[in-house]
């Protein structure tokens, strides 16, 4: 956002420079002025030559589909009869609120996000703080905590499905050794979502840990030295030096985890197919099923529009919070 305003400013400066009313321009002899103008034209041409491929691709494959999703959401577009689209106004949207599956998927997604976001943030911060100390084998520990990130969600989901298996799964076998009876991790409606949450935190925390580490290294050392001279305990140092120094990064991570959490799809799709009893069905999964299994693109698009609005709202609220914190 900052870059945006600065280059917009550059542009207006430049426009002023060209404007004939500008006194500095008047001094320039007419011959040079003409040359400058053609140079500016050439620069604009070159600029657009370099920018055009990306702009066209983003327009066709990102902005156009966004607009199309919005358009489809007001129609009864059905994949099996693509030539027969009619406009049905807000019918899809009014159906959303009656759709019990949507409501369930929505609350499942909210539940997932509300738990995952703070837990993952805390775990990532904890890991970063542990590793930021002067310890031996630092690179080893860092790599170990990061390694789940390197595995794909598909791999991790399949692996954990086996680990969570009620009878022969690794976790229940190990729990059996210490005398805990087998748990129905993925097969009970009460536990399935929590099991997915545990796995998701395990998989993602290392990623945010890395960003926190970069943030920790940006806190100037002399602040800690000053706190030492004042006789601060390590808890006080954490509270008054480390936390304020990490505030912006923590808020940034907070936003990215929240948005990522709301996009929950792969884990329930592979591990539970949304079950048992729909307890792990997420919003995006419901959209996917409606669009691809039931081929109801119109209704799926309406839900996608609502989904986009929710993500946008999360982003905007958190951006505003950040701005207030900074100001």
């Amino acid at each position: 956002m900052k870059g945006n305003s600065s280059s917009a400013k550059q542009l207006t400066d430049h426009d002023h420079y060209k404007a004939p009313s500008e006194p500095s321009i008047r001094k320039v002899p007419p011959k040079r002025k003409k040359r400058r103008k053609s140079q500016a034209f050439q620069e604009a041409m070159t600029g657009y030559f370099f920018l055009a491929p990306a702009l066209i691709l983003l327009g066709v494959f990102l902005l156009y589909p966004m607009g199309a999703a919005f358009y489809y959401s007001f129609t009864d577009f059905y994949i099996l009869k693509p030539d027969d689209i009619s406009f049905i106004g807000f019918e899809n949207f009014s159906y959303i609120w009656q759709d019990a599956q949507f409501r369930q998927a929505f609350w499942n997604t909210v539940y997932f996000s509300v738990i995952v976001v703070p837990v993952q943030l805390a775990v990532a911060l904890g890991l970063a703080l542990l590793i930021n100390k002067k310890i031996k084998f630092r690179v080893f520990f860092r790599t170990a905590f990061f390694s789940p990130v390197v595995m794909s969600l598909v791999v991790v989901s399949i692996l954990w499905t086996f680990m969570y298996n009620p009878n022969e799964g690794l976790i229940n076998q190990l729990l059996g050794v210490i005398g805990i009876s087998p748990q129905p991790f993925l097969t009970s409606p009460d536990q399935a979502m929590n099991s997915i949450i545990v796995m998701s935190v395990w998989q993602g925390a290392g990623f945010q840990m890395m960003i926190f580490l970069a943030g920790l290294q940006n806190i100037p050392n002399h602040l800690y030295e000053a706190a030492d001279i004042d006789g601060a305990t390590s808890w006080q140092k954490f509270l008054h030096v480390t936390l304020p120094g990490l505030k912006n990064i923590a808020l940034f991570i907070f936003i990215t985890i929240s948005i990522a959490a709301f996009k929950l799809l792969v884990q329930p799709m592979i591990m539970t197919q949304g079950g048992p009893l729909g307890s792990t069905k997420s919003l995006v999964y419901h959209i996917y099923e409606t669009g691809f299994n039931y081929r109801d693109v119109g209704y799926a698009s309406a839900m996608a529009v609502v989904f986009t609005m929710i993500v946008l709202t999360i982003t905007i609220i958190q951006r505003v919070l950040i701005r207030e914190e900074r100001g």
Partner: protein
Amino acid sequence: MKRKKRIQGVVLYVSLILLTFIFLFPLVWMLVSSLKDEFQIFKDMKSLKAFLPPAPNEVEGGYLHNYIAAFQRVDLMKYILNSLIYTTGIIIFGLIVNSMAGYALARFRFPLAGFWLGVIIATLIIPPESIFLPLYVLVYDLGWVNTYTGLIVPFIANAFAIFLFRQFFLDFPKELEEAAKIDGCSQIGIFFRIIVPLSKPVFATVAIVLFINHWNDFLWPLVVASDESMRTIQIGLQYFMNEPPIKWGQVMAALTIATVPMLLIFAFLQRYYVQGLTHTGSKN
């Protein structure tokens, strides 16, 4: 005081080792189990042997028997090749298109430059999950379903990559370019002969970020590569779970195969990847 320090140190290392175990054991277990036969996987699971590789004489058919079986059961080679074509396609075209756009936004003054930068950054907010249906319809109408074109082209332009390139080129010294211009080099020549060779770090960073994202991609390949011969490795993995009988040794082998390229990339190019990560955090 000294004793307190020592206790603190012990607590620190014990918790670090415990955490390492928690974060690593599924990975280790996957690697180790891929070497065992079915009976052994289940037999070992009750003890720490679950995390130890089998003794050579315990495995019938050699350590690689699950890998050989996995390759024989489905066309894993084809899936890996598809994933490689898909990711390298996006990387090659993505590097060219996005670096050019980033350069334009960092260097040239042209009408609406600020506006386009705003638009590009704004597209970062659009969740890919909300557009995959209309995107599928579009790609279907273009006749690109089950083609590499359909897998690759929609993801060449990448707002985040453009942003990374722009940040890098803003800090790039102008003198070299000016010198080349005086020598009569064209703008395109300047970009490809001077800027690109001197900007290897940012190209490496973007390439790795693109590789990791798209090697692990799931949703788009799932919908657009429905034909068996077009499947990527991430989609192909599901076959081992969905088609009974489930052979866990083979599943583990297949999972390992899907993970190894990422592990290698990360091991060798960690520096660039971390650079990309920290850019994510600090530049916002």
